[in-house]
């Protein structure tokens, strides 16, 4: 599995935050994208774009606490020939859903929306700050590409790929330190999932901070002699149908894991893909259609059922259902 870039020895080590990796990367590669402009709504320090503001002040546009106008103006900037990257927190991105739909996706403008603080990973600010619906909402817009990288290494590789891609993209970053999953040689491919751990009894499909937890689950399952495959599905839309169909044939059962509502996000995308290709039992790990609360990300992940042991339990259930088909 050398080609996967998966580094077992690094699992569990505290990594850089996804927002920091996003901010540093977009700043570092700005020279390769002369038309790039970064748009902020008074959260540059929170999204990582403060690096860009410092290095490229003439290409940084401040909109104040007015996300709808920022996103609408991003459409205008794209029409004027700029490459706009608008950044805010994921909950505030949700309030721009109609601007993204009407002003960006419908005319298929080349605008990127990078959202930090998604999911329970947003932590102590509590339910009002924990966007659990963003993947579902943006996935439902025609023509949107939706990406949620697993760690800082993947984020650094994903940002240039997204800037090179001509079309609207929703990029999910993150607030808290993201555990290391990949080594520096990792190559990101938009629209492709990747097997990062081989296994034959069940496939765990995860995105974002849940990828490291999926690897925890696979390790736990080994003790029970269960062989779990782990797929990093960082592009949620368009979903990698071929890889999912292959995993269905080869393992026959699935768990999806996401720091998001179990409705409409990664789990929904995987279920839709499998239903249309090779149907298989699926168990969904995610927030079970409730709101979160204040707490540290790991405490919340445990309470709301997102950690490795919960994923492992779900894997056992999925395997048990294989015979019932």
């Amino acid at each position, binding site marked *: 599995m050398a080609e996967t870039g998966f580094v077992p020895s690094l699992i569990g080590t505290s990594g850089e935050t996804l927002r920091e990796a996003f901010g540093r990367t977009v700043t570092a590669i700005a020279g390769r994208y002369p*038309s790039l*402009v970064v748009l902020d709504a008074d959260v540059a320090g929170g999204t990582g774009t403060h690096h860009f503001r410092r290095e490229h002040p003439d*290409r940084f*546009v401040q*909109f*104040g606490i*007015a996300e*709808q*106008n920022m*996103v*609408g*103006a*991003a*459409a*205008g*900037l*794209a*029409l*004027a*020939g*700029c490459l*706009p990257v608008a950044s805010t927190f994921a909950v505030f991105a949700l309030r721009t859903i*109609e*601007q993204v739909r*009407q*002003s960006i996706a*419908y*005319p298929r403008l080349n605008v990127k929306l990078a959202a930090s603080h998604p999911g329970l990973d947003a932590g102590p600010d509590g339910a009002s700050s924990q966007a659990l619906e963003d993947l579902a909402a943006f996935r439902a817009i025609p023509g949107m590409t939706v990406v949620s990288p697993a760690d800082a290494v993947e984020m650094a590789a994903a940002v240039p790929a997204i800037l090179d891609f001509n079309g609207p993209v929703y990029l999910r970053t993150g607030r808290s330190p993201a555990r290391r999953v990949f080594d520096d040689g990792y190559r990101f491919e938009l629209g492709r999932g990747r097997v990062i751990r081989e296994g034959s009894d069940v496939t765990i499909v995860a995105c974002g901070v849940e990828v490291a937890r999926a690897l925890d689950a696979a390790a736990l399952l080994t003790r029970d002699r269960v062989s779990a495959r782990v797929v990093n599905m960082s592009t949620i839309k368009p979903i990698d149908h071929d890889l999912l169909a292959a995993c269905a044939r080869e393992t026959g059962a699935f768990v999806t894991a996401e720091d998001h509502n179990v409705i409409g996000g990664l789990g929904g995308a995987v279920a839709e893909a499998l239903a249309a290709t090779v149907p298989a039992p699926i168990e969904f790990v995610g927030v079970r259609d409730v709101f979160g609360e204040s707490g540290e990300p790991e405490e919340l992940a445990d309470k709301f059922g997102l950690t490795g042991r919960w994923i492992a339990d779900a894997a056992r259930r999925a395997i048990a259902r294989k015979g019932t088909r």
Partner: protein
Amino acid sequence: MSDLKSRATEIRRIAVSLINDAGSGHPGSCLSAADLLAVLYFQELREGRDRFVLSKGHACPALYAALHLRGHFDRTALGTFRRLGGLLQGSPTTSIPGVDATCGSLGQGFSIAVGLALGFRQTSRDGRVFVMLGDGELQEGEVWEAAMAAGHHRLGNLCAIVDYNKMQSDDLNERTMRLEPLDAKWGAFNWHVRPIDGHDVNAITAAFADARSRPDRPTVIVAHTIKGKGVSYMEGVPAWHGSVKLKPEEIARALADLGVDPARTHEYAFRG
């Protein structure tokens, strides 16, 4: 009649005919905006350099009329308005030749215009950006986010036009959600405010010149207009805002009011 006035009249004739052909549309909003569009498209806009955003996208029949008269698409295309597979969609989209921004959800076109103006500045282009807003549209919060941003960033290359016909979908603005004091609102957002009679082509011309002379701040032309202007039975009647189907005698009367010889009304039937 001046050339601009005759262009405005032609825009009105085509717009009401498009709505008649389609069986639905917003005639009142097209008729109030026609003189402003005529001055824009036949005098002010520099093709290829400037941009126009119709944020009140429901008035697109008037925009399509102006674009047709400017030669962006032919008479056959006019017959496709609101029709399955047709070029001319029920709201303006950039897939239509000459349309600079996709609009239709109120408030959003104004933000697009702010982004265009910022983008022109960012890329050192000398283009100017014009955006037309409806008065009811000003009730959208996004409009004031965009107004604040344009004032803050001193977008002197941006000119907004409010088609202030005093009416919206259901009723008068005054009874739906009061806008006054409107000039003071724009002034408070750091805009240069120019109230005019929106049917006086000389006043419109002068207002655009005024806007051009102020590179340090955006200008809003508060154009006082009459909803349904030019069609006697529609003028000042809120019911003609909405998506209405004209009866045969109503389209005949409208074209007569707009000076079309009854023997030549067939020239304004665009559907084959």
